[in-house]
């Protein structure tokens, strides 16, 4: 325990980014992620890094594109309304096959919404982060420790696959303090022969570009990109199971919803209900196989979300609708209570697997 420190999730992820080798941060303040920018403004100058408060979120994501083109680790962070503004840039990052870490500490929406926690950018992150055919690797931490671990993981996967990793946190994860270990061992580095580092008249110029007027070339690049996505879906799925061995009911939840669900599952178990949880850690790639396998054993699923029901669609798709999927949700900055989740578990038991 001696090596653990007490940090807010926002600060811990910022320190983790620096430890992972990120020396360029561009951002614009917005609650509930402003501590990331505040922390970077203090720390980056001390490690010969760049902290720049951009004039807008759009400017910040375009600065990310610029730095990433040179092969350096780079990140930006924001909260829901600011992430909407970055959407164009996220699509350009994908079109240019550039690695980056983008952090979304979600708040309630739509519109300017509120400043309290939310998970209602699930669709945005996993489906529609911008125009065109592309995915981001979407990582969903449920503790301050995972804010750190998944920041390291996010940079690593981004470099490995030349794409954007999004750390999709909620306001609770950003604002909460927990004991955390920053020690992550060795940081992988990747060769980046595509980067714009100057030819020194020794090689042909590299070009980073997302404008491709020739449809055959553009089609080929899309297919190649999706071959990489298929590999990620095979190799990079992350999830955690809790009390699933004998479970008859399965809660699916991520982030703070998974924390609340754990309490509810413990209480339900005390009442004799065999319920467990599958917690997706990667939201894309979604843990389809483990959910599909669970669908052959459990009677029903309960998707617990801080949204009007977004992940619930992925649970239904993954399980091929073999079993009923109930939704337990609160929105607008409200967080499901243990009782909310317990009520939904009880409802699942009541219908006993029948729609």
């Amino acid at each position, binding site marked *: 325990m001696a090596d653990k420190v*007490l940090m807010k999730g926002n600060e811990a992820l910022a320190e983790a980014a620096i430890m992972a080798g990120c020396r360029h941060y561009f951002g614009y303040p917005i609650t509930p992620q402003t501590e990331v920018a505040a922390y970077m403004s203090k720390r980056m100058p001390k490690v010969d890094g760049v902290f720049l408060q951009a004039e807008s979120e759009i400017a910040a994501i375009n600065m990310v594109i610029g730095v990433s083109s040179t092969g350096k680790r780079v990140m930006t962070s924001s909260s829901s309304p600011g992430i909407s503004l970055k959407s164009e840039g996220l699509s350009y990052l994908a079109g240019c096959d550039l690695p980056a870490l983008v952090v979304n500490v979600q708040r309630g929406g739509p519109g300017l919404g509120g400043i309290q926690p939310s998970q209602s950018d699930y669709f945005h992150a996993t489906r529609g982060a911008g125009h065109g055919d592309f995915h981001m690797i979407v990582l969903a931490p449920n503790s301050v420790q995972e804010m750190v671990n998944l920041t390291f993981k996010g940079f690593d996967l981004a470099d490995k696959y030349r794409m954007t990793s999004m750390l999709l946190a909620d306001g*609770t994860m950003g*604002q909460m303090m*927990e004991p955390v270990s920053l020690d992550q061992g060795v940081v992988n580095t990747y060769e980046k022969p595509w980067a714009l580092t100057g030819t020194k008249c020794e090689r042909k110029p590299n070009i980073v570009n997302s404008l491709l007027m020739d449809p055959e070339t553009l089609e080929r690049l899309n297919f190649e990109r999706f071959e990489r996505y298929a590999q990620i879906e095979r190799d990079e799925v992350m999830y955690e199971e809790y009390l699933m061995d004998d479970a008859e009911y399965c809660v699916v939840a991520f982030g703070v919803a998974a924390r609340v669900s*754990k309490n509810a599952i413990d209480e339900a178990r005390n009442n004799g209900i065999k319920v467990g949880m599958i917690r997706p850690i990667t939201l894309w790639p979604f843990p389809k196989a483990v959910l599909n396998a669970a669908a052959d054993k459990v009677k029903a699923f309960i998707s617990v979300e801080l949204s009007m029901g977004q992940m619930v669609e992925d649970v239904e798709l993954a399980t091929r609708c073999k079993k009923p999927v109930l939704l337990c949700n609160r929105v607008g900055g409200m967080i499901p209570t*243990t009782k909310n989740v317990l009520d939904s578990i009880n409802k699942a038991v009541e219908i006993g697997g029948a729609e």
Partner: protein
Amino acid sequence: MQKQILITGFGGQGILFSGKFLAYDGLLKGKELSWLPSYGPEMRGGTANCSVILSDEPVGSPIVLNPDILISMNVPSLDKYENETVVGGQIFYDSSLIDREVTRKDVEVYPIPATQMASDENLPGLANMILIGHVMAKTGLLSLEDADVVLAKMVPAKKAHLIDSNKKALELGFNY
């Protein structure tokens, strides 16, 4: 063993700092813990709540809805959380700011005129720590010696001159 603590009041009263103080003690004792603030957009004057959970097991939900220990520094928060406190729980409140009594009979109640005491002793802004000192004495969560260690750890060097007044405030509450 798990203690769910909810500290409530207005922004600017040191609600979050008090919670951080208790959380740091948990950290130094190797406990599992969570510290979660909830506040409005204002720096001062809005509602400020702080959930602290100290536990021997990993903490599930970090949100405290039914506290074992409620620490209240304004009327609206006592109104809101008195009935949410668990049976047999403990309610501490600043009786210079809250002019009503707790009506529950199934909880332990500890009023202390912390704001008045802070003013009398020339400890501006330290009513929160007077309250925490009282919490320490009545709950046994930490001793005054523990508090010294916590303050030395959590107060940054450039604010070290504030440690003595914080200690004095804790002692006042502790011995009340």
